């Protein structure tokens, strides 16, 4: 099929962009992996689960309903359950290659004049002894199964790590009947004081979470970290300890908390695979964009977490600006930024806010000291920290690629998405863009056919032959 604009990802950024562009006459195809739009942030319980009362706070719900109803009323073509594995540049624009789910075997291609990457992010988790035990999940993962499947992993949970996501996860689990034995945040609350002017806008929200934590009697431990998870075949307890001002564990402060669930996260990472394969410039971990949300590859825009972690409200502002920019540029005109002045102001304010959050909510500075040599670091290939250290100290590896070649860390199913930051930290190397050619596993038959010259001329959706 052919479209003016292909938007990849139907979270806040992708939805805002699709609606802004479509309202200005652009033919938009919105390609998303989930069965329903919303992304991770607006994830809804499956319809068959018959939820009659929404979970989200009022203002979030109103925004979601506006986006959902806007999408339904628009001319945007929404391809749900389509898993994009590559976006390719060709003579006439771009070819988006996707696999139709849930088995992800049927190839679908969309040809577009422009592409907008709104691929979101995923959670970063740094390793510690015992983190591979069943019962240890990412904070976002616990939230996803609760929001979408109304499922909880156990009876007693510890929520730990750092960052703003921990608060809704702890209160969400508590509201669903899980006893939250502790919320363990490694950041020092005094750090927040320094950034108070930037963070002031979030204070009412933070106060709301504080009240809910109090109501559910959740002990909130700041300046603490989980140093180990224990159990035989599944999680039975965690050890937490206090951190000193330098980010080292204070001797003699360790204590054990029995629990069957640990929901843990150390911040978020942007999904940049599609952008990297297109050759877009990456700054640090983020896709680089200009004031109009354009990447440095002509015809490719990006918005939301993929351009830098900043939350749903920022993603909405960026998506809106991107959609309007696409609409103008596809007509061959330069957009007038004054037309999106309000979105521009929120974007500036929210970027500043999240820069402050980022400064305060960093993992403990010396987290690698808690990672014993026998701790598995690469979960897929079961590579231990000792092997990574040996690669650097004994075998002379000086960069991540060499560490990977010597240890297999990052060569497994997830392609280093999970262990990347951990291996970089342990090896003392700078994190480098992974440059994965494909964003997800692709059946070989699909790959072979995608290279067929007639494929680009297919006018309609392809099914399996």
């Amino acid at each position: 099929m052919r479209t003016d604009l292909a938007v990849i990802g139907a979270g806040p950024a992708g939805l805002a962009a699709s609606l802004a562009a479509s309202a200005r006459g652009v033919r938009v195809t919105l390609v998303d992996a989930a069965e329903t739009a919303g992304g991770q942030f607006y994830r809804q319980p499956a319809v068959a689960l018959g939820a009659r009362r929404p979970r989200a706070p009022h203002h979030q719900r109103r925004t979601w309903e506006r986006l959902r109803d806007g999408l339904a009323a628009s001319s945007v073509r929404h391809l749900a359950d389509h898993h994009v594995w590559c976006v390719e540049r060709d003579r006439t624009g771009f070819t988006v290659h996707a696999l139709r789910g849930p088995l992800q075997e049927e190839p679908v291609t969309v040809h577009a004049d422009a592409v907008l990457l709104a691929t979101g992010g995923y959670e970063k988790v740094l390793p510690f002894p015992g983190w591979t035990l069943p019962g240890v999940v990412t904070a976002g993962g616990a939230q996803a199964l609760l929001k979408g499947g109304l499922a909880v992993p156990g009876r007693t949970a510890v929520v730990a790590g750092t960052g703003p996501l921990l608060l809704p996860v702890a209160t969400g689990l508590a509201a669903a009947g899980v006893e939250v034995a502790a919320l363990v945040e490694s950041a020092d609350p005094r750090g927040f004081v320094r950034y108070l002017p930037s963070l002031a806008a979030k204070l009412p929200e933070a106060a709301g979470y504080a009240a809910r934590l109090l109501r559910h009697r959740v002990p909130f431990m700041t300046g603490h970290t989980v140093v180990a998870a224990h159990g035989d075949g599944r999680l039975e307890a965690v050890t937490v300890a206090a951190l000193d001002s330098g980010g080292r564990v204070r001797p003699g402060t360790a204590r054990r908390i029995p629990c069957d669930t640990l929901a843990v996260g150390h911040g978020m990472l942007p999904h940049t695979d599609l952008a990297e394969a297109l050759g877009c410039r990456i700054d640090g971990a983020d896709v680089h964009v200009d004031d109009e949300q354009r990447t440095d590859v002509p015809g490719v825009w990006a918005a939301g977490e993929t351009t830098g972690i900043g939350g749903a409200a920022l993603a909405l502002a960026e998506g809106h600006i991107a959609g309007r920019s696409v609409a103008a540029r596809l007509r061959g005109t330069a957009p007038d930024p004054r037309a999106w002045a309000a979105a521009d102001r929120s974007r500036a304010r929210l970027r500043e806010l999240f820069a402050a959050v980022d400064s305060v909510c960093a993992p403990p500075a010396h987290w690698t000291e808690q990672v014993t040599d026998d701790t598995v670091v690469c979960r897929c290939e079961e590579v231990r920290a000792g092997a990574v250290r040996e690669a650097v100290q004994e075998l002379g590896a000086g960069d991540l690629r060499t560490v990977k070649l010597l240890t297999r860390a990052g060569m497994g199913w997830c392609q280093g998405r999970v262990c990347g930051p951990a291996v970089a930290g342990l090896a003392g190397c700078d994190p480098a863009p992974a440059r994965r050619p494909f964003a997800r596993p692709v059946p070989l038959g699909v790959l072979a056919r995608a290279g067929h010259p007639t494929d680009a001329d297919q006018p309609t959706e392809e099914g399996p032959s």
Partner: protein
Amino acid sequence: MSPLEPVRAEPDPAFTVTLDGREIEALPGQTVAAALWTAGVVSWRTTRGEGRPRGIFCGIGVCFDCLVTVNGRPNQRACLLPVRPGDAIRTQEGTGHED
């Protein structure tokens, strides 16, 4: 309290699936992972190298820790795959191709 209560969920009728031959109840709309969690199961795979148990980790399709064999097909992500009536779910040993 159950996680259904805060959202006052009234799900469509539950159906039966099997895990390694044992019958468990699942709710329509859940993923395989959500159904297994609800049944109190947290691991359904053993690793290729050391045979260690694994289940859900990232919950959003990124980490591939929750791989499972469903209806004879190995290496499916339990966190993404919708559960269907009568599904035969099996604990996946290693690559899932050695059974």
